[in-house]
């Protein structure tokens, strides 16, 4: 796909639509003139609404697509880590945190899959089996497994096993350390995205990337605090 061309076309399309819809609405005189004319029917408004939504949706770039595909795998690993909390005897506070991470990132995975589906892009499917994460991208050559191991903050399989074997306070400490790194990796991925020409211009992509960034920075701060509280009394025998 030639991105710059697609973008140019969609910008043009949008500009055209805007011009058609709001002919010269920068100047307010015309706005008052227009309001005098009969209001368009609800059906026509609805038609226009969906046309706008559909065309705005297509202003995405390949960098946005890559970001979504990568972040689905990234989030999926956070689910694997968080699901360990109850069975590994995590503290109540950490279980709340893990439950929130599961709830938030599962919803975001869903949102990112929907984002890709609506734009006719390959949609990674997430399969989790214990500590094993499999990402299938149907429609790609030989049902490709997305390579999600080299993204920033991703745990190695050895680290996942280590985490799964830690119990109680040890689990809390290791979980926080790994999840802080994992979240920081997500923040790095957002940073890389927005530093790419043409990326995150599309509204949903911008919003998702921004939400991921602020949510995870917030959680990093909370986890650092939890880790510090934990490391103080925890170091005593």
């Amino acid at each position, binding site marked *: 796909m030639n991105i*710059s061309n697609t*973008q140019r076309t969609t*910008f043009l399309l*949008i*500009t055209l639509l*805007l011009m058609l*819809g*709001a002919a010269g*609405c*920068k100047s*307010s005189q015309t*706005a*008052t003139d227009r*309001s005098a004319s009969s209001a368009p029917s*609800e059906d026509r*408004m*609805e038609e*226009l*609404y969906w*046309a*706008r939504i559909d065309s*705005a949706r297509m*202003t995405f770039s390949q960098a946005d697509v890559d970001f979504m595909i990568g972040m689905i795998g990234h989030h999926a690993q956070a689910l694997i880590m968080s699901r360990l909390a109850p069975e590994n005897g995590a503290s*109540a*506070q950490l279980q*709340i*945190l893990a439950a*929130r991470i599961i709830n*938030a990132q599962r*919803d*975001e995975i869903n949102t990112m899959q*929907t984002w890709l589906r*609506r734009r006719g892009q390959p949609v990674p499917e997430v399969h989790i089996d214990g500590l094993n994460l499999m990402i299938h991208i149907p429609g790609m050559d030989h049902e490709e497994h997305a390579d999600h191991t080299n993204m920033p903050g991703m745990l190695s399989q050895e680290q996942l096993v280590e985490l799964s074997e830690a119990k109680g*306070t040890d689990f809390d400490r290791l979980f926080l350390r790994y999840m802080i790194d994992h979240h920081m990796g997500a923040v790095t991925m957002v*940073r890389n995205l*927005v*530093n*790419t*020409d043409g*990326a995150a*211009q599309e*509204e949903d992509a911008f*919003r*998702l990337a*921004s*939400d991921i*960034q*602020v*949510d995870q920075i*917030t*959680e990093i*701060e*909370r986890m*650092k605090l939890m880790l*510090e*509280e934990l*490391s103080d*009394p925890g*170091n*005593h025998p």
Partner: protein
Amino acid sequence: MNHFSRLAKRGSSITQLPLKLWAGAFVLLFGVWACAPSSSMQDTSPAGSSYSSSVVTFDQAERPSPDPRVGLEAGLFDAEEAIWNMRKVSHTPPPEGFLGVTNSDLAFKDNYAIQGNYNGFMVWDISNPASPELVVDYLCPASQSDVSIYENLLFVSGEGYGGRLDCGTEGVDQAVSQERLRGIRIFDVTDLQNPQYIANVQTCRGSHTHSVLKDPDDNDNVYVYVSGSASVRPEEELPGCVDLMPDEDPSSALFRIEVIQVPLDNPEQAAIVSSPRIFEDLVDAPSHGLSPADLAEIEEARQQGAFVADVFGRPRVLSPRWIRPLLEQVVAERGGTGEPTAADSAALRETLAERIEAQFGGNDDEEDEEETIQRGPDQCHDITLYPEIDLAGGACEGYGLLLDISDPANPVRIDAVADSNFSYWHSATFNNDGTKVLFTDEWGGGSQPKCRELDPYEWGANAIFTVENGQMNFESYYKLPAPQTTLENCVAHNGSLIPIPGRDIMVQAWYQGGISIFDWTDPENPIEIAFHDRGPLSAEQMESAGSWSVYWYNGSIVSSEIARGLDIFELTPSDYLTQNEIDAANTVRLDYLNAQGQPKYVWPASFALAKSYLDQLERGRALDMQRIGDLRQQIAEAENASGSRRARMLRELAGDLESTAGSSSDATRIRKMAEAVRQLAAG
């Protein structure tokens, strides 16, 4: 009821439920009207007759059941609706140029509502709330187009990467560009129907939201607090923007807010005047500690026999790993050996606090294996400024902050709270007298469905705090009480106080969860008193929609609907709110409103005000009913009288009330009523 007839024209399957609801609303309306105290009723009842109550207590008040918000049909302009204790006065779709583009926040001036949109902003003339008239649709794309107004200046936030200095619609294709606008746009709206774009102030992280502060002691300037949450811009795009940590580079754009000073005589000279680091050293700030859920868990553990002790100022359940050596210590102290007995266990319980203190206190030699500089959040989402009490509530990532803003350019943090149930502190609202503050948690950023049946009540909710001597104390959570579908983005969002005298009542937007009006006078027991909700925008997939913000402004409740346009509502009397209370609220007139620059409501003297307090005394059963009936009659007689006779009757009534106050369970409210009656007498 034009709304009803409009709906009725559409498919019958859609009108079924609204019909029932509207019928319900009629019943409620008439029911309450019929028994509302009116002067004619009072006139006919002879003095001394037994008084039958017309204002029920909250316990007796009726709620619709099952909740009519569950199961509403989807639609863009024809979604099924549920409404309770309010009336939809109008719905106006966006102008074509703004259709399909996100509507955002609202500001108000005179008879105008200014509505932000990711494509620019609109100005609506709402002189006739039943028929708002679009007077400006200004095309100038930038998310989120958060809007504020002060005198002849309009401020608009730009955050997204596609915003252009020249208001062009083509976006900005390069990661580094001199054409990008991220920050504040300033418009001269001397003629609100003809805005002039006069200046920009660029900021390193753009402006997600902003708040305007007018310092009562400074008539030359107005201040804009900017909160930016997106990434720091490259230095090549905006010189001076540094993305490093402050200890690596003190000029870091992280961990600070920006304060823009706008000279009123020369707004083109607007510039950043300070970048306060209100988050520094938050590790020392006391948190409100554990949430009620955490405390409940600890209590449960305690009851099951776990050892609980304060460690570093917080109650903690001690693990067997800690307890074992302590028990062995107790055994050794009594000169024993072997397994600890029940008596040893009891002895440990008695001395646990001291032992923990001895063991864990003053651990200065602790080696820091992790980086321990705690910076707290690195930005705020919204800062609500309340200049009349010199306080601001900062909703800043993982913290709620209380700020002293007596020096506008240099806000100082005086308290901070954190909460393990809160994900993302989003906005703050004070009650009118500043004794409480409510923070919202925009969990999931507003684009996720966080009001589903199984989403916990305390997640994505409001947290209510009392404020005493500059300290915030957690009281309770409030969350939209009706579960929403997975097709509806829903979480706590923007709202404002409704000036019901003597009560703390707020109207709040919950995106596709609709609008919820609730009473938080009792901070431990907030209760919903009215709502409006639509079904999802789409029956197939989640589309961003719903109420972004809803604010009370001069008798109207105005909502910015992300996809569907502008909604205007008004309150209707109910078991939870009397006509007198609504009338009293409507005596409050504002010249302008930015909800994040909270105005102090002041009620002019009116019979509605006095009667509101009386209704509240009756609702709270703060006086015996006979006395309530007598007071109603006295007020009615005074209202029917005129001139000096009326004044004399009111003065007598005020005197009566003052002498009654001591014997009531709600002396404060009686004194407020007495004061209102005295003002009326003087008026």
